[in-house]
């Protein structure tokens, strides 16, 4: 198990190096000299040259990359062209909002596991058909359509929840400390989470159905084990394994969904920050956001894989 974790951590380092090269190349290849952008429209060629030297733009590419990495390692993501603020500061204020949304969405997403299992155990009953049909319908709705629909129903028509922005305070970054904070979280989190619930419950149902028809569950029954142990011990663990993998792979979709959700709900998180920065060609902010997103994605995948290895001995021992 420790060997497995160590290997995964080494892999992680390589992934991060790869991503830093790609983002660096994007910055390098995008037309337009950053020195011009920084110096402003009416700068003298001399001033541009000065800034170029300051930024090291006259150095060979590998030196520039080295400096880029050096800055990243020290937590320096550069400064926003648009706001003239360090990107790190912008990230610091945006990350908690995104983290809160993501954690809430994942918690909601996990509801899909019991729902899917319930469906599978009641296959072909009215509950199963209702749950499955609902899941398929929700799964088919694009996240921004659902977002607008939720805004209209709960924010405008019923008027019971705020439908844009953020507010209130949290403790431990993500746990809402007051109603103001929670109320701003509910609609975006449910919007983002419910689509994932649909997806996960559908997958969990399929996986559970396969497991309860499997040979080893038949063996468990043939051993005279009570039904409770057949389901809770012999089926559950096996049925959750593939769903965890799917959930891990789907984290990318969750992050894409978070950008859209934040945008529609004007929730100031990393998604909205990057979205605005792209529109304004604010390159350092885009790069900072992308690096952060990659980092989270890779770490989250690692966590999922470790959970997976914890449950499945075949992986642990390989």
């Amino acid at each position, binding site marked *: 198990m420790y060997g497995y974790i160590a290997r995964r951590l080494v892999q992680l380092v390589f992934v991060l190096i790869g991503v830093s090269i790609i983002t660096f190349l994007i910055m390098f290849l995008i037309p337009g000299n950053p020195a011009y952008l920084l110096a402003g429209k009416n700068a003298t060629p001399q001033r541009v040259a000065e800034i170029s030297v300051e930024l090291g733009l006259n150095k060979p590419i590998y030196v520039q990359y080295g400096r880029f990495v050096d800055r990243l390692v020290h937590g320096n993501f550069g400064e926003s062209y648009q706001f003239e603020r360090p990107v790190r500061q912008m990230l610091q204020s945006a990350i908690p909002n995104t983290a809160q949304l993501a954690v809430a969405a994942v918690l909601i997403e996990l509801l899909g596991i019991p729902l899917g299992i319930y469906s599978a155990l009641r296959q072909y009953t009215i509950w199963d058909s209702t749950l499955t049909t609902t899941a398929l319908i929700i799964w088919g709705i694009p996240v921004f359509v659902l977002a607008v629909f939720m805004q209209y129903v709960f924010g405008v028509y019923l008027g019971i929840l705020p439908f844009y922005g953020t507010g209130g305070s949290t403790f431990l970054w993500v746990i809402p400390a007051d109603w103001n904070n929670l109320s701003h979280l509910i609609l975006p989190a449910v919007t983002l989470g419910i689509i994932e619930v649909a997806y996960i419950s559908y997958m969990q149902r399929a996986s559970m159905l396969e497991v309860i028809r499997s040979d080893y569950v038949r063996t468990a029954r043939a051993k005279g084990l009570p039904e409770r142990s057949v389901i809770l011990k012999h089926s559950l663990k*096996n049925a959750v394994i593939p769903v965890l993998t799917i959930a891990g792979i789907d984290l990318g979709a969750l992050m894409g969904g978070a950008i859209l959700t934040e945008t529609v709900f004007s929730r100031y998180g990393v998604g909205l920050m990057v979205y605005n920065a792209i529109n304004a060609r604010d390159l350092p902010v885009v790069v900072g956001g992308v690096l952060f997103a990659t980092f989270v994605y890779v770490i989250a995948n690692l966590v999922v894989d470790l959970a997976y290895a914890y449950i499945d001995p075949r992986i642990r021992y390989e």
Partner: protein
Amino acid sequence: MAERLLEVTDLSTHFFTYAGEVKAVDGVSFTLDRDETLGIVGESGSGKTVTAMSVMRLIPDPPGRIVGGTIVHKGRDLLAVSKEEMSDIRGNDVAMIFQDPMTSLNPVFKIGDQIAEVIRRHQGKSKRESWKMAVDLLAKVGIPDPEERVNQYPFEYSGGMRQRAMIAMAISCNPDILIADEPTTALDVTIQAQIMDVIREMQAQYHSGVIMITHDLGVVAQMADKVMVMYGGRTLEDGPVDEVYYNAHHPYTWGLLGSLPRLDETEKQRLTPIEGQPPNLLLLPAGCPFSGRCLYEMPVCAGEFPALEMVEPGHGVHCWIPVAEREKIRAGLPQFVHRVPS
């Protein structure tokens, strides 16, 4: 007389599918005594597994249901006991080994855990005691380094070892009846013989009755005392192994014996397959399921299933062809003459 362990009478198990009612087992009867081995043979789809699963009461419902008959185990009708009582019987009085050892063990639990679990369930032993018993059982079925191996997961076992572990699990509570459903089909030939030996040893030690389901008439000849030939959910012929092999009365049995590799013919072991396809259970005739494929079919065959006819004590057959006629036909079957199994 040996103790009667199982008496199955007129067992019928049907599956109610969208395509129609599948009579997977239709009026099957047999008995099993202590220390006795019953072989059940027949082509794929003849209802062997469904018969075994019916005895275990493990038919998935829906779509399946035991629609008739009785299954009496030591004086108690298993079809009449409650679900809870049945699960006390399963794995304890009646145990089963399945065809595919690669998939029959749970991949995420240790072998020891999977064996100890049965012991705890039925014998109320502690965790430590049952674990120790699991080690002993593994040793008994011939797993090397049982102390070590008991801590391993199924994926660390070879196919033959997994089947040994399955056997260990099945015998852990000293069952009266051990059902082995094609226990060696998924294994290679050298391993097959070893597994059969283990089953035989365990039977000798625990005095169980064994039901051995197989395609392989050679296995039946080696292992079984009596044999039941199934086809299309029906019993076509049954009796003591020697009787049925040397004195077969049903055309289907002739066909099966004809497709047995001849033991005296070492160079070319050619199989003579039975002509035609195994039956579609949805389109079975009301009469003998083998009609349509039978070389000696008569007009009456498809219309009505023939009653049981005892040709010798303990040797029964369901066939419309008159006895004298059958014996004449059999005498003229070339490939049948030197059939010497065992």
